[in-house]
């Protein structure tokens, strides 16, 4: 079988299929379970500087083309999360801590104390006041937050970008200027759904983020644009639910991919995707390296 191991974003990964932030990432045990199920790395639920209970329910709504969520960044704070990371790390794959804050100082404070294999900066959650995309849509803030965390942390720093902007490339370039080791694209698209029986917005928070199948073509385009211009690696995420989706995202230029909403179908998705990529590479007599960014080379 062709090797799926890869060095991406400053981490050695046994395969390029990671668990995305916010999915089964509240406890060390569930992260560990994802790792044991075959994930090449796992990203935690985003943690901030103070405990948050999140938005009232409903926190998710299934729509025909995907999933809406507005969890509201529930987390016990970074002070109460180290044990969960420790448990997750016992599975032997890198654990990437997703962190959020309302300023460069708040981000840096968390990164100074929390121990993980890498940080992923949540500059892209579309439904939490004062956090996420409220900072992440401004290139100068993306650059300064990234710079502050780089100065505070001694592990790789990834920056997760929002697609809720006119030009995601500008945000990617800002992260690169700030010293990011990789960008992760994309977070959810800001969205909502209304109950037509009563007129009530369905999510407790009214607005949420759309993930799943519907956003995959958007994610592929963002990854393609970013990979074509950036010197740092791009990690692709958004609507990947099969090995074919993963191959497409890697061809767009992603060095690794993350899977989120597809976990609705269970933990088996990691093995399904990694086995599918292996068989594909074997059939095509290609390596992972040959695959990465192929679409960009084809369109030159």
């Amino acid at each position: 079988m062709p090797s799926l191991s890869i060095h991406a974003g400053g981490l050695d990964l046994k395969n390029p299929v990671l668990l995305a932030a916010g999915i089964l990432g509240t406890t060390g045990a569930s992260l560990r379970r994802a790792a044991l199920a075959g994930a090449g790395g796992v990203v935690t639920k985003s943690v901030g500087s103070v405990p948050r209970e999140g938005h009232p329910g409903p926190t998710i709504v299934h729509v025909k083309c995907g999933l809406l969520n507005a969890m509201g960044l529930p987390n016990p704070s970074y002070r109460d999360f180290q044990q969960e990371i420790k448990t997750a790390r016992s599975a032997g794959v890198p654990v990437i801590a997703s962190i959020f804050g309302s300023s460069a100082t708040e981000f840096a404070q968390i990164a100074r104390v929390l121990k993980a294999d890498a940080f992923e900066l949540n500059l892209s959650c579309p439904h939490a006041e004062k956090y996420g995309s409220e900072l992440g849509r401004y290139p100068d803030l993306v650059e300064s937050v990234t710079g502050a965390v780089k100065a505070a942390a001694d592990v790789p720093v990834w920056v997760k970008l929002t697609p809720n902007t006119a030009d995601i490339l500008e945000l990617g370039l800002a992260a690169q200027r700030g010293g990011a080791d990789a960008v992760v694209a994309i977070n959810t698209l800001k969205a909502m759904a209304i109950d037509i029986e009563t007129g009530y917005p369905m999510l407790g928070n009214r607005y949420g983020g759309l993930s799943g199948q519907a956003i995959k073509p958007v994610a592929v385009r963002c990854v393609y644009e970013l990979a074509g211009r950036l010197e740092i690696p791009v990690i692709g995420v958004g609507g990947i639910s099969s090995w074919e989706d993963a191959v497409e995202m890697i061809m767009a230029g992603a060095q690794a991919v993350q899977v989120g909403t597809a976990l609705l179908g269970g933990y088996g998705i990691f093995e399904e995707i990694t086995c599918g990529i292996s068989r594909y590479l074997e059939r095509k007599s290609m390596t992972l390296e040959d695959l990465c960014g192929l679409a960009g080379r084809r369109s030159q």
Partner: protein
Amino acid sequence: MKPINCIIEEVRSETPLIRTYRLDRNLNPAPGQYLMLWIRGVDEIPMSFSGQDTITVQSVGVATQAIFRMGAGSEVGLRGPLGNGFALKGNKILLIGGGVGTAPLAFLAEVAKKADISVTSLLGFRSRDDMIFQDRLEGLGETIITTDDGSYGIKGHASAGLKELNLFDYDQIYLCGPEMMMSDIISRTAEHAAKTQACINRYFKCAAGICGSCCLDPDGVRVCVEGPVLLADRLLDSEFGRYKRGPSGAKGPCRG
């Protein structure tokens, strides 16, 4: 699935703090399954079925208080039935319930009786005034009742009723109640853990198995989709009865 709109057809008071709501449709649930009840403008919370088309609610917080303000004709949204439910096995079963946890067991007893399974119940309540579904269960088989204050039946917790029973007589044991009560029963009856099914409670947010808020240590069991009914065998060396995570994901004590 998207929430469907449902109308409350009837409200029945069981005790001052517990009411049963009958919905305008039968979702064909299995006993032990639950639904996510959307009280519009307030919250969405999990509720066990207490019958084919009923839920039994104890007033404990903002969302359940909002339900208590609703009468016949009120509309709610719901997703369900969700979760695995009890697996009905054997010819002779024992139900052990505590407080409002008696609700899914009463539903199970009726389904079991229809399948000609012999049902025995052991029910624990705080006092005579907190008793629910005594009539429903007494009509279906031998029923032993305990009250903490001794105002009815045997004085003490549900476990005080265990000495009246030979657990080897039963093919399967079904358990639902406050966590400390269930944990107490499970540890006292550990040799029967492989035939004991417990319907448990954790903090559910998504109820779809992806957010991770209900995952149980040490194996990360997603209670909202792999439960809420779990074999006691799986609970014996788990966080169950020791701690539970709240809405933020922080660990806290198990109450009740």
